[in-house]
């Protein structure tokens, strides 16, 4: 009351929407308030969460638009506006809500506080209008007030119209009048005053006296301003009465205030200006205000019920029913408390007139007032409250939505848990109490006696942490400037050095030169050796250890008999030696000599030219040499015999005679055999040596190209074998066996090794009756060890080496092949075969036959493969018969084979078998009729149709659905494998989507035998892991 005395100019927001809001918000609040007051007045207990309740109820209002539609269709904009504040009101609570605690109460309190604070400041501003009193009264009689408020709004509207009409003329007069009356009633500070004015305004409708008109005109401005002010002010006032309003009101009011500020900012100047002129204007305003406060004071007291006259404008029956307005009659005499109301309406302009003299902002005020009034026209009535049940249902609905939203925040977590492959419980690990020493020390307070004693001691010795720190800092303080600078310089230097070293290392790392690297490595090795004397095994890595080991072994193998050994070196270095040592040395030397001799002695006699250096290479070389010489000799021998033959053929002698020839041949054969034996022995050993060199353990096959073979994880490289296709059709073979016109080409293709080949003998030795179907796969015989065409240096790349090896092999193979071809070619020329008997002496005819064979091979290539089997056999026979030097045998064998397979038509048989199989499986109908049963016999009876129930249908497999349908070369059985059926699954198990997927998953074993340790652990980790004896707490919201 007291503070309300000072009149002040209220700010008028210019924005149209703002005013609208204010008005509507106010009206709405009023209606809500009344509603609530009725509701809560009876409920005595104050549940902490009730404010929430109200808030939700408000939410409800907003949510159910359709419900409210009928009631307030006119307030379309306000709802949208209300959204903002409401949400603001809701959100902080939900989001910022504390974990488990209700947290709501405190929240609320805060809001209330801010609200109050705001209100206080506001009050000052609007103190002139005496709100506190007014609102108090409002609180006292809510129902009435609601109706009043709703009435005021239309009034303003009307005024607005008038303002437009009468603006100019009425200004001065009304202003003076207002002043007068204000002066009259200044002293009266009745608390109820303001309400009375409102009442009066409301009731003005039916009987409008000129006075009243004036009054109301004056009233106009306060009421307008009040409309907006109340938005701010009401909450606070209501707080006193009912806590539950806080939330909502705060939301709205804060929003409004925000809007206010934003809108008002352009008007700030105006306001400040008016502030300056406050003194001038102040008096007039004050007058006006006091006048208003005193207006119709008694009126209200007398007839609060009467006021609401039957308003003509609002004719809606429903509204009337709700509002319960009573007809208003003139009551009481006109006096200072109840001025008579016959006057014209109080106009807004009347109220503004006093400002006309001073205000630069009058115009703007007018403008804003105009907007205000014009808009308020639509806002004639407020909605009736919903029925309680509907209201509550809406509340629940909204509350449920909120709860849903709240719990929905868990959805991500739940999804994660659901999809996790492994879960280790408890899921939310307790924050590990990792407290650092520092932390502990900082927190430490001596509690026990001992502790305190120790603490005291430390304190006395100034050894506690803080003391130490202090002393340190003190020390630092004592340092002189020079010292500090020196330290700094040192540090900088170190840093610089480090940087440089780093840069250097980077640069060095980029060098690509191999020589540089080698040198570097050597240096490193040297250093390592120097350092490594003391170092033990542990820091040696595997590689170096291996290297050491190799070195040592080599030394063992080589140096025992040499004077380069460690011991020998030591002896040499020693200089003077005693008897024993000298003897040892001599022994060593002699042993070395002996060894050397042994290596070289067996070979050629001339070891003198062999170098003194006795490396392994030499030993090997010696052996090679020996072998080579032996082979040479053999070759010579061969040549000699050939020469003999040639000469023998030319001259006619006794040797020409058949028996002599035979005898010679026999002799030769024997000799050959011996030679062959030898060759084979040597050759094989030689071969073995070769193999030793290369690391691959695989067998070497004759081939021209290289093949890469992978057997069980290891890759082997070797010269590729042009293997005969074993799967060439059998039928072809059998049929072709009989064809003799293929022969030349067959023979030409034959890859038979030369006559020098020891294989036949070997086979003969191995198996008494040679298997004609087995073809030898390789011919290891090789008389002369090959000289290396391409020198493979030690350090050439391993690829190079292996390539070289391959080449070597290929070459070898080539030679053999050519040799064989030659032989075959010789075989072809029938006469030669017959006459020569032995084709080992193919030397002279070589060039000719080669060309020939080349040609033949060219045209024989196409069908040669299919004949390979036959060839093989023949070749073998050839070889076998070679000892007897009888080529005819080959043909005999051929005949034999042809005869053996004469009736063997494999292809046809296969087709037949398949057809039979298909027929067996095919669906069929079996007539199970027993002849003579169920039918008539005798003459003249017709044969009855088989009864359908006696026809048994066997559902077989349709030929077209068979797995081997249109696959000529296979028969796939459609029969069910009973034993395997045990392990089959009927349908695809659940999580899998395809058969392949399932099979793949079943294929992979999970045991330790088939997995690495980590793989096993990972594969067998259970989905849910719980630790025994660990409490698993429910999920918790973590802040």
């Amino acid at each position, binding site marked *: 009351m007291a503070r309300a005395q000072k009149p002040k100019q209220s700010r008028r927001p210019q924005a149209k929407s703002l005013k609208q809001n204010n008005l509507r918000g106010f009206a709405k609040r009023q209606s809500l308030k009344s509603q609530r007051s009725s509701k809560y007045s009876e409920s005595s207990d104050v549940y902490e969460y009730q404010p929430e309740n109200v808030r939700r109820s408000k939410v409800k209002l907003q949510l159910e638009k359709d419900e409210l539609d009928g009631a307030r269709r006119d307030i379309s904009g306000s709802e949208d506006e209300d959204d903002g504040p409401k949400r603001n009101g809701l959100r902080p609570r939900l989001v910022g809500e504390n974990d488990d605690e209700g947290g709501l109460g405190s929240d609320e309190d805060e809001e209330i506080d801010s609200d109050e604070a705001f209100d206080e400041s506001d009050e000052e501003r609007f103190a002139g209008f005496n709100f506190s009193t007014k609102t108090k009264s409002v609180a006292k009689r809510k129902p009435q007030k609601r109706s009043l408020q709703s009435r005021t709004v239309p009034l303003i509207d009307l005024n607005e119209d008038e303002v437009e009409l009468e603006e100019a003329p009425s200004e001065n007069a009304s202003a003076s009048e207002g002043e007068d009356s204000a002066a009259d009633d200044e002293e009266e500070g009745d608390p109820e005053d303001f309400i009375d004015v409102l009442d009066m305004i409301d009731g003005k409708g039916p009987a409008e006296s000129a006075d009243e008109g004036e009054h109301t005109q004056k009233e106009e401005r306060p009421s307008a301003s009040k409309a907006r002010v109340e938005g701010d002010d009401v909450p606070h006032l209501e707080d006193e009465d009912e806590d539950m309003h806080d939330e909502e009101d705060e939301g709205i009011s804060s929003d409004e205030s925000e809007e206010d500020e934003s809108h008002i900012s352009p008007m700030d100047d105006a306001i400040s200006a008016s502030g300056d002129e406050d003194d001038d204007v102040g008096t007039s305003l004050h007058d006006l205000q006091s006048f208003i406060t005193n207006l119709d004071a008694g009126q209200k007291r007398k007839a609060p019920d009467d006021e609401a006259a039957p308003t003509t404008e609002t004719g809606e029956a429903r509204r009337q029913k709700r509002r319960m307005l009573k007809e208003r009659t003139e009551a009481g005499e006109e006096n200072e408390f109840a001025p008579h109301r016959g006057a014209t309406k109080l106009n807004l302009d009347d109220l503004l007139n006093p400002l006309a003299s001073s205000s630069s902002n009058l115009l703007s005020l007018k403008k804003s007032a105009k907007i205000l009034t014009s808009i308020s026209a639509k806002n004639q009535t407020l909605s009736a409250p919903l029925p309680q049940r509907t209201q509550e249902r809406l509340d629940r609905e909204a509350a449920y939505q909120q709860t849903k939203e709240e719990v929905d925040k868990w959805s991500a977590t739940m999804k994660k848990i659901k999809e996790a492959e492994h879960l280790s*419980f408890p899921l939310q690990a307790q924050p590990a109490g990792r407290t650092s020493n520092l932390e502990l020390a900082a927190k430490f307070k001596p509690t026990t006696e001992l502790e305190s004693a120790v603490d005291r001691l430390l304190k006395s010795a100034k050894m506690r942490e803080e003391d130490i720190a202090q002393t340190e800092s003190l020390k630092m303080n004592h340092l002189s400037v020079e010292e500090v600078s020196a330290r700094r310089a040192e540090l900088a230097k170190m840093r610089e050095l480090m940087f440089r070293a780093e840069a250097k290392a980077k640069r060095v790392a980029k060098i690509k030169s191999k020589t540089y690297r080698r040198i570097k490595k050597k240096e490193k090795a040297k250093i390592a050796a120097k350092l490594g004397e003391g170092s033990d095994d542990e820091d040696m890595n595997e590689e170096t250890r291996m290297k050491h080991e190799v070195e040592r072994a080599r030394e063992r193998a080589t140096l025992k008999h040499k004077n380069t050994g460690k011991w020998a070196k030591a002896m040499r270095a020693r200089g003077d030696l005693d008897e024993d040592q000298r003897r040892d040395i001599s022994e060593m030397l002699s042993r070395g000599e002996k060894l050397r001799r042994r290596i070289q002695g067996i070979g050629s006699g001339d070891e003198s030219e062999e170098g003194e250096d006795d490396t392994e290479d030499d030993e090997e070389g010696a052996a090679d040499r020996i072998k080579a010489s032996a082979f040479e000799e053999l070759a010579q021998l061969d040549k000699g015999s050939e020469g003999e033959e040639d000469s023998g053929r030319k001259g006619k002698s006794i040797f020409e005679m058949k028996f002599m020839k035979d005898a010679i041949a026999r002799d030769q054969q024997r000799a050959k055999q011996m030679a062959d034996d030898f060759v084979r022995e040597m050759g094989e050993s030689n071969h073995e040596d070769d193999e030793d060199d290369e690391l691959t353990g695989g067998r070497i096959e004759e081939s021209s190209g290289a093949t890469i073979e992978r057997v069980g994880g290891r890759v082997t490289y070797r010269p590729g074998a042009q293997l005969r296709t074993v799967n060439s059709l059998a039928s072809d073979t059998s049929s072709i066996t009989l064809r003799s016109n293929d022969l030349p080409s067959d023979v030409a293709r034959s890859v038979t090794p030369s006559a020098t080949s020891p294989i036949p003998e070997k086979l003969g030795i191995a198996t008494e009756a040679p298997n004609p179907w087995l073809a030898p796969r390789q011919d290891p015989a090789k008389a002369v060890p090959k000289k290396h065409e391409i020198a493979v240096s030690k350090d050439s790349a391993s690829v190079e080496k292996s390539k070289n090896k391959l080449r070597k092999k290929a070459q070898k193979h080539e030679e053999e092949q050519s040799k064989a071809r030659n032989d075959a070619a010789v075989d072809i020329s029938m006469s030669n075969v017959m006459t020569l008997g032995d084709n080992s002496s193919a030397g002279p005819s070589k060039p000719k036959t080669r060309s020939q064979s080349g040609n033949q091979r060219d045209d024989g290539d196409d069908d040669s493969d299919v004949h390979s089997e036959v060839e093989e056999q023949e070749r073998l026979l050839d070889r076998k018969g070679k000892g007897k030097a009888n080529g005819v045998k080959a043909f005999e064998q051929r005949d034999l084979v042809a005869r053996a397979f004469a009736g063997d038509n494999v292809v046809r048989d296969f087709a037949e078998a398949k057809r039979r199989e298909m027929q067996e499986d095919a669906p069929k109908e079996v007539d199970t009729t027993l002849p003579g049963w169920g039918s008539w016999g005798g003459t003249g009876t017709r044969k009855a149709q088989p009864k359908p129930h006696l026809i048994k249908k066997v559902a077989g497999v349709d030929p077209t659905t068979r797995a081997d349908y249109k696959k000529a070369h296979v028969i796939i059985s459609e029969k069910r494998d009973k034993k395997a059926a045990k392990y089959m699954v009927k349908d695809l198990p659940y999580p899998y989507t395809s058969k392949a997927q399932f099979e793949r998953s079943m294929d992979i074993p999970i045991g330790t035998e088939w997995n690495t340790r980590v793989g096993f652990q990972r594969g067998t980790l259970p989905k849910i892991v719980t630790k025994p004896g660990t409490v*698993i707490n429910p999920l918790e919201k973590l802040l």
Partner: protein
Amino acid sequence: MVKISVLQHAPSTHLPARPGDPTPTSRNLDPLMHPFARARERTRALNAVKMERIFAKPFIAALEGHVDAVETMARKPGTLNVVASGSWDGGMIVHDISLRRHILRVDEAHKGKISGVCFADEDRLLTCGVDRNVKLWDTREVDENGAGPSDVRKPLNVFPGKSAFNSIDHHRTDPIFATASNIVQIWDETKSAPISNLSFPTSIETISAIKFNLSESSVLASIGSDRTFTLYDIRTGKAERRIVMQMRSNALSWSPTFPTTILLASEDHNLYTFDIRSLKTPSQIYKAHVAAVMSCDWSPTGHQFVSGGWDRTVRIWQEGRGTAPEVYHTKRMQRVTSTLFTSDAKYVLSGSDDGNIRIWKARAHEKLGILDSRERAAIEYRESLKQKWKTDAQVNKISRSDFLSLFASVYIVADRQLSSLSRTRHIPKPVHKAGQLKRTMLEAQRVKEERRRKHTRAGESKPTAEKRKVVIAEQS
């Protein structure tokens, strides 16, 4: 160059790196080298599943002490071994289940049955009974009044109510608790009157059970005699939503790891999980009991739950798997009125009509005691083998069989009756018969429904999904 083979000894390749480590083994992991891997693993899986059945002995102990049926049990949060139970005779016992002794025993805690117990905080216990009182107890050996274990205990506090209480539950963190009578009331521990009443308007039912959500601790759910399930929120102070189901529920439990999931044990022999965000249909139906389900409780992992039924069985279910739960029963166990998981998810407690509380292993074949790492690895291997080979007919058959019939199938295959028994677990004959009867009835119902549909105009009546039948109405 002569090739020199070097003897070398690198211990790191075949010795464990650290003392505790397993010895490194080198083996060829090439699958081509192991043509029989699959066959071997299958055999192992078979053995594993047989072992499981052989060692499946879930019963551990029975805790005695109650004179009448054990109506309710509650575990003390944060402990493994402390469980309180209330009985029909009004006796309340706090058990130490690891030592199998009574920590506290009050014979006349309430007049009439104790309908609910729950721990308030560390040492304080709340009980409610049909004598319209909620009592707060101190469970320490020597309580505040100085009464030792042998003395007659007095409650620390008594909260009088207006009607008989059926259930009580404490808020997870705050000092408030909720009781269920004909309305839901929220109490403050420090106040003698309820601080608020929550009830769904227009409901005149008896609330039979109430539970606070564990993670979203202001959310509250109750079930009532009117076949309802109601959701509350103490922040909004409202009953927010209610569903009416075909049959009433007897118990409810919130999932500890899935905060939106609630489990209802229904009178119609089934259990239902609901997602509270959509209460129209249950998210899963669990069918196996042959009588009303009287109690249920989630495992703390949220991947299992236990239920006890009027059919005298305790069943342990896997979350999301609506059939074939593990069945526990003993000859002397009567109607199971309360069940509970321990908070390490390893054990299950069941309180039954015979007045005993039984301790079971949650996994029947689990080995108790300390395992060394190798054994644990072996067990895990066996488990994953079983999992992998469960599609195999034989493995599956054995896993479904019973301990006894396993031997029957192994040794006495000729005996037909036994081998037919080996199809499923052995259950008491009455349960078995009841199951048969139930199946028959359901089948008859189904047939009838089908016929009815056949004789109505096409498309007029469509079969409704089982899930849609559960909820009659959802009310807001």
